[in-house]
Protein backbone atom coordinates (compact mmCIF):
# COMPACT_ATOMS: atom_id res chain seq x y z
CA UNK A 1 0.00 0.00 0.00
CA UNK A 2 1.14 3.52 -0.67
CA UNK A 3 2.45 5.30 2.41
CA UNK A 4 0.24 8.30 1.67
CA UNK A 5 -2.90 6.13 1.56
CA UNK A 6 -1.94 4.35 4.78
CA UNK A 7 -1.52 7.73 6.46
CA UNK A 8 -5.00 8.80 5.42
CA UNK A 9 -6.54 5.54 6.68
CA UNK A 10 -4.67 5.86 9.98
CA UNK A 11 -5.82 9.43 10.47
CA UNK A 12 -9.40 8.38 9.78
CA UNK A 13 -9.13 5.54 12.29
CA UNK A 14 -7.88 7.98 14.92
CA UNK A 15 -11.25 9.75 14.67
CA UNK A 16 -12.86 6.70 16.33
CA UNK A 17 -11.71 8.29 19.61
CA UNK A 18 -14.67 10.65 19.23
CA UNK A 19 -17.09 7.74 19.86
CA UNK A 20 -15.71 7.40 23.36
CA UNK A 21 -15.90 11.13 23.95
CA UNK A 22 -19.53 11.13 22.82
CA UNK A 23 -20.44 8.32 25.21
CA UNK A 24 -18.61 10.10 28.02
CA UNK A 25 -20.31 13.46 27.50
CA UNK A 26 -23.69 11.76 27.21
CA UNK A 27 -23.14 9.87 30.45
CA UNK A 28 -22.06 12.99 32.31
CA UNK A 29 -25.02 15.13 31.26
CA UNK A 30 -27.51 12.26 31.56
CA UNK A 31 -26.40 11.34 35.06
CA UNK A 32 -26.30 14.99 36.13
CA UNK A 33 -29.84 15.46 34.88
CA UNK A 34 -31.18 12.36 36.61
CA UNK A 35 -29.39 13.33 39.80
CA UNK A 36 -30.74 16.88 39.57
CA UNK A 37 -34.28 15.56 39.07
CA UNK A 38 -34.02 13.45 42.20
CA UNK A 39 -32.55 16.18 44.37
CA UNK A 40 -32.94 19.62 42.76
CA UNK A 41 -31.62 21.44 45.83
CA UNK A 42 -28.19 19.83 45.43
CA UNK A 43 -28.03 20.45 41.67
CA UNK A 44 -26.61 23.97 41.66
CA UNK A 45 -23.75 22.96 43.93
CA UNK A 46 -22.61 20.25 41.53
CA UNK A 47 -22.70 22.44 38.41
CA UNK A 48 -18.93 23.21 38.46
CA UNK A 49 -18.25 19.47 38.68
CA UNK A 50 -20.51 18.96 35.67
CA UNK A 51 -18.51 21.46 33.63
CA UNK A 52 -15.24 19.92 34.78
CA UNK A 53 -16.40 16.44 33.79
CA UNK A 54 -17.66 17.73 30.44
CA UNK A 55 -14.35 19.38 29.62
CA UNK A 56 -12.31 16.36 30.71
CA UNK A 57 -14.44 13.96 28.64
CA UNK A 58 -14.37 16.22 25.60
CA UNK A 59 -10.59 16.52 25.77
CA UNK A 60 -10.09 12.75 25.46
CA UNK A 61 -11.80 12.87 22.06
CA UNK A 62 -9.53 15.70 21.02
CA UNK A 63 -6.47 13.63 21.88
CA UNK A 64 -7.60 11.44 19.00
CA UNK A 65 -7.57 14.50 16.76
CA UNK A 66 -4.02 15.27 17.87
CA UNK A 67 -3.01 11.72 16.96
CA UNK A 68 -4.61 12.18 13.53
CA UNK A 69 -2.76 15.46 12.98
CA UNK A 70 0.55 13.92 14.07
CA UNK A 71 0.03 11.07 11.60
CA UNK A 72 -0.88 13.44 8.78
CA UNK A 73 1.64 16.24 9.24
CA UNK A 74 4.47 15.18 11.56
CA UNK A 75 5.68 12.03 9.77
Amino acid at each position, binding site marked *: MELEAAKMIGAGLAAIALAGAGVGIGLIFGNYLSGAMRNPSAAAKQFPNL*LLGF*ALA*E*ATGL*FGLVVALIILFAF
Partner: protein
Amino acid sequence: MASNPMHQFEVYRIGPEIKLGTVNLSFTNPSMFMLISAITILLLLFLGTRKKLAIPSKMQFITESSYAFIAKMINDTAGSGARPFFPFIFTLFMFVLFCNMIGMLPYSFTVTSHIIVTFVLAAFIFIAVTIIGFIKHGIKYLQLFVPKGVPVVLLPLIIVIEIISYLSRPVSLSVRLFANMMAGHTMLKVFGGFVISLGLLGGWLPLGFSVALTGLEILVAFLQAYVFAILTCIYLNDALNLHH
Protein backbone atom coordinates in the same frame (compact mmCIF):
# COMPACT_ATOMS: atom_id res chain seq x y z
CA MET B 1 -9.84 23.84 -1.74
CA ALA B 2 -10.53 27.53 -1.40
CA SER B 3 -8.05 28.15 1.40
CA ASN B 4 -6.21 26.12 3.97
CA PRO B 5 -7.97 25.93 7.38
CA MET B 6 -4.53 25.62 9.01
CA HIS B 7 -3.41 28.94 7.56
CA GLN B 8 -4.73 30.80 10.64
CA PHE B 9 -2.12 29.15 12.89
CA GLU B 10 0.83 30.47 10.90
CA VAL B 11 3.45 32.35 12.90
CA TYR B 12 5.13 35.21 11.10
CA ARG B 13 7.49 37.99 12.02
CA ILE B 14 6.36 41.57 12.61
CA GLY B 15 9.04 44.20 12.28
CA PRO B 16 12.81 43.59 12.16
CA GLU B 17 14.52 40.27 12.74
CA ILE B 18 16.27 40.03 16.12
CA LYS B 19 18.77 37.22 16.58
CA LEU B 20 20.68 36.33 19.72
CA GLY B 21 23.21 33.76 18.62
CA THR B 22 21.16 30.94 17.14
CA VAL B 23 17.99 31.93 19.04
CA ASN B 24 15.43 33.87 17.04
CA LEU B 25 13.91 36.54 19.28
CA SER B 26 11.89 38.40 16.65
CA PHE B 27 8.56 39.99 17.52
CA THR B 28 5.89 37.74 15.98
CA ASN B 29 2.11 37.77 15.78
CA PRO B 30 1.75 35.44 18.83
CA SER B 31 3.85 37.86 20.88
CA MET B 32 1.64 40.71 19.69
CA PHE B 33 -1.57 38.95 20.71
CA MET B 34 -0.10 37.93 24.09
CA LEU B 35 0.75 41.60 24.60
CA ILE B 36 -2.80 42.61 23.58
CA SER B 37 -4.34 40.14 26.08
CA ALA B 38 -2.06 41.30 28.87
CA ILE B 39 -2.85 44.95 28.18
CA THR B 40 -6.60 44.21 28.04
CA ILE B 41 -6.44 42.45 31.43
CA LEU B 42 -4.43 45.31 32.94
CA LEU B 43 -6.85 47.91 31.56
CA LEU B 44 -9.89 45.99 32.82
CA LEU B 45 -8.48 45.56 36.31
CA PHE B 46 -7.11 49.11 36.47
CA LEU B 47 -10.28 50.82 35.25
CA GLY B 48 -12.45 48.48 37.31
CA THR B 49 -10.77 49.36 40.59
CA ARG B 50 -10.15 53.06 39.95
CA LYS B 51 -13.38 54.28 41.51
CA LYS B 52 -14.47 52.10 44.41
CA LEU B 53 -18.20 52.61 44.72
CA ALA B 54 -20.57 50.92 47.15
CA ILE B 55 -22.95 50.35 44.24
CA PRO B 56 -20.49 49.08 41.61
CA SER B 57 -20.40 50.23 38.01
CA LYS B 58 -20.40 47.55 35.29
CA MET B 59 -16.61 47.61 35.03
CA GLN B 60 -16.15 47.31 38.78
CA PHE B 61 -18.70 44.50 38.88
CA ILE B 62 -16.80 42.44 36.26
CA THR B 63 -13.54 42.93 38.13
CA GLU B 64 -14.99 42.09 41.53
CA SER B 65 -16.91 39.06 40.32
CA SER B 66 -13.86 37.61 38.56
CA TYR B 67 -11.90 38.07 41.80
CA ALA B 68 -14.64 36.43 43.87
CA PHE B 69 -15.05 33.60 41.35
CA ILE B 70 -11.37 32.58 41.53
CA ALA B 71 -11.15 33.11 45.29
CA LYS B 72 -14.14 30.80 45.82
CA MET B 73 -12.77 28.21 43.43
CA ILE B 74 -9.41 28.08 45.24
CA ASN B 75 -11.09 27.88 48.62
CA ASP B 76 -13.38 25.04 47.51
CA THR B 77 -10.81 22.87 45.77
CA ALA B 78 -7.48 23.53 47.50
CA GLY B 79 -8.56 24.72 50.95
CA SER B 80 -7.61 27.85 52.82
CA GLY B 81 -3.93 26.83 52.78
CA ALA B 82 -3.76 27.73 49.09
CA ARG B 83 -4.66 31.39 49.75
CA PRO B 84 -1.06 32.65 49.12
CA PHE B 85 -1.25 31.22 45.59
CA PHE B 86 -4.29 33.32 44.66
CA PRO B 87 -2.34 35.88 42.55
CA PHE B 88 -0.70 33.13 40.50
CA ILE B 89 -3.92 31.26 39.75
CA PHE B 90 -5.83 34.48 39.05
CA THR B 91 -3.15 35.58 36.58
CA LEU B 92 -3.14 32.17 34.94
CA PHE B 93 -6.93 32.08 34.58
CA MET B 94 -7.21 35.62 33.22
CA PHE B 95 -4.34 35.13 30.76
CA VAL B 96 -5.73 31.88 29.34
CA LEU B 97 -9.28 33.27 29.27
CA PHE B 98 -8.30 36.47 27.45
CA CYS B 99 -6.02 34.65 25.00
CA ASN B 100 -8.91 32.30 24.16
CA MET B 101 -11.50 35.08 23.94
CA ILE B 102 -9.36 37.46 21.85
CA GLY B 103 -8.71 34.51 19.55
CA MET B 104 -12.47 34.36 18.89
CA LEU B 105 -12.39 37.74 17.13
CA PRO B 106 -12.21 37.40 13.34
CA TYR B 107 -8.74 37.81 11.79
CA SER B 108 -7.04 37.53 15.17
CA PHE B 109 -4.61 34.89 16.35
CA THR B 110 -5.25 32.36 19.14
CA VAL B 111 -2.09 32.16 21.22
CA THR B 112 -3.29 29.10 23.14
CA SER B 113 -3.73 27.09 19.92
CA HIS B 114 0.04 26.53 19.87
CA ILE B 115 1.20 23.65 22.03
CA ILE B 116 4.44 25.32 23.03
CA VAL B 117 2.55 28.16 24.77
CA THR B 118 0.29 25.83 26.76
CA PHE B 119 3.13 23.40 27.45
CA VAL B 120 5.29 26.11 28.99
CA LEU B 121 2.41 27.12 31.28
CA ALA B 122 1.74 23.47 32.23
CA ALA B 123 5.41 22.63 32.76
CA PHE B 124 5.79 25.66 35.01
CA ILE B 125 2.78 24.54 37.09
CA PHE B 126 4.09 20.97 37.28
CA ILE B 127 7.59 21.99 38.43
CA ALA B 128 6.23 24.56 40.88
CA VAL B 129 3.76 22.09 42.43
CA THR B 130 6.48 19.44 42.81
CA ILE B 131 8.83 21.93 44.50
CA ILE B 132 6.04 23.20 46.79
CA GLY B 133 5.21 19.61 47.78
CA PHE B 134 8.83 18.80 48.64
CA ILE B 135 9.30 22.06 50.56
CA LYS B 136 6.14 21.50 52.59
CA HIS B 137 6.45 17.77 53.32
CA GLY B 138 10.10 16.97 52.62
CA ILE B 139 10.77 13.41 51.53
CA LYS B 140 7.31 12.41 52.84
CA TYR B 141 5.84 13.95 49.68
CA LEU B 142 6.67 10.64 47.98
CA GLN B 143 3.72 9.20 49.95
CA LEU B 144 1.62 10.73 47.17
CA PHE B 145 2.50 7.71 45.05
CA VAL B 146 1.33 5.26 47.72
CA PRO B 147 -2.47 5.38 48.00
CA LYS B 148 -3.96 4.40 51.34
CA GLY B 149 -5.72 1.06 51.82
CA VAL B 150 -4.07 -0.76 48.92
CA PRO B 151 -3.00 -4.40 49.52
CA VAL B 152 0.77 -4.78 49.79
CA VAL B 153 0.80 -7.31 46.94
CA LEU B 154 -0.51 -4.71 44.51
CA LEU B 155 1.79 -1.90 45.66
CA PRO B 156 4.64 -2.36 43.11
CA LEU B 157 2.14 -2.07 40.27
CA ILE B 158 0.15 0.80 41.81
CA ILE B 159 3.26 2.89 42.52
CA VAL B 160 4.42 2.61 38.91
CA ILE B 161 0.96 3.61 37.65
CA GLU B 162 0.80 6.55 40.08
CA ILE B 163 4.22 7.81 39.01
CA ILE B 164 3.30 7.59 35.32
CA SER B 165 0.03 9.42 35.94
CA TYR B 166 1.89 12.11 37.91
CA LEU B 167 4.45 12.59 35.14
CA SER B 168 1.78 12.77 32.43
CA ARG B 169 0.03 15.70 34.17
CA PRO B 170 1.82 18.50 32.24
CA VAL B 171 1.24 16.68 28.94
CA SER B 172 -2.48 16.16 29.49
CA LEU B 173 -2.93 19.67 30.90
CA SER B 174 -1.26 21.32 27.90
CA VAL B 175 -2.66 19.05 25.19
CA ARG B 176 -6.22 19.51 26.52
CA LEU B 177 -6.15 23.28 26.11
CA PHE B 178 -4.19 23.23 22.85
CA ALA B 179 -6.34 20.54 21.21
CA ASN B 180 -9.60 22.21 22.21
CA MET B 181 -8.60 25.58 20.82
CA MET B 182 -7.04 24.21 17.66
CA ALA B 183 -9.88 21.80 16.87
CA GLY B 184 -12.51 24.48 17.41
CA HIS B 185 -10.81 27.08 15.23
CA THR B 186 -10.09 24.56 12.46
CA MET B 187 -13.75 23.48 12.52
CA LEU B 188 -14.93 27.10 12.27
CA LYS B 189 -12.71 27.69 9.25
CA VAL B 190 -13.77 24.43 7.57
CA PHE B 191 -17.44 25.43 7.88
CA GLY B 192 -16.54 28.90 6.66
CA GLY B 193 -14.97 27.26 3.60
CA PHE B 194 -18.22 25.33 2.96
CA VAL B 195 -20.15 28.62 2.85
CA ILE B 196 -17.90 29.90 0.06
CA SER B 197 -17.81 26.68 -1.97
CA LEU B 198 -21.60 26.07 -1.80
CA GLY B 199 -22.29 29.60 -2.97
CA LEU B 200 -25.40 31.75 -2.63
CA LEU B 201 -27.91 28.88 -2.93
CA GLY B 202 -26.58 26.21 -0.56
CA GLY B 203 -24.34 28.27 1.66
CA TRP B 204 -26.97 29.21 4.22
CA LEU B 205 -26.92 25.88 6.05
CA PRO B 206 -23.17 25.89 6.87
CA LEU B 207 -23.50 29.60 7.69
CA GLY B 208 -26.07 28.73 10.37
CA PHE B 209 -23.79 25.98 11.66
CA SER B 210 -20.93 28.46 11.72
CA VAL B 211 -22.92 30.87 13.91
CA ALA B 212 -23.90 28.06 16.30
CA LEU B 213 -20.31 26.82 16.46
CA THR B 214 -19.08 30.31 17.30
CA GLY B 215 -21.38 30.26 20.32
CA LEU B 216 -20.08 26.83 21.31
CA GLU B 217 -16.49 27.99 20.89
CA ILE B 218 -17.04 30.95 23.20
CA LEU B 219 -18.37 28.51 25.81
CA VAL B 220 -15.36 26.23 25.26
CA ALA B 221 -12.97 29.19 25.52
CA PHE B 222 -14.32 30.02 28.97
CA LEU B 223 -14.61 26.38 30.03
CA GLN B 224 -11.05 25.49 29.12
CA ALA B 225 -9.66 28.47 31.01
CA TYR B 226 -11.75 27.37 34.00
CA VAL B 227 -10.61 23.74 33.70
CA PHE B 228 -6.98 24.82 33.40
CA ALA B 229 -7.29 26.89 36.59
CA ILE B 230 -9.26 24.27 38.54
CA LEU B 231 -6.82 21.48 37.64
CA THR B 232 -3.98 23.69 38.83
CA CYS B 233 -5.89 24.04 42.12
CA ILE B 234 -6.36 20.26 42.34
CA TYR B 235 -2.64 19.64 41.77
CA LEU B 236 -1.85 22.30 44.36
CA ASN B 237 -4.24 20.59 46.76
CA ASP B 238 -2.29 17.32 46.34
CA ALA B 239 0.92 19.13 47.20
CA LEU B 240 -0.43 21.14 50.15
CA ASN B 241 -2.78 18.66 51.84
CA LEU B 242 -1.13 15.26 51.51
CA HIS B 243 -3.81 12.54 51.93
CA HIS B 244 -6.03 15.21 53.53
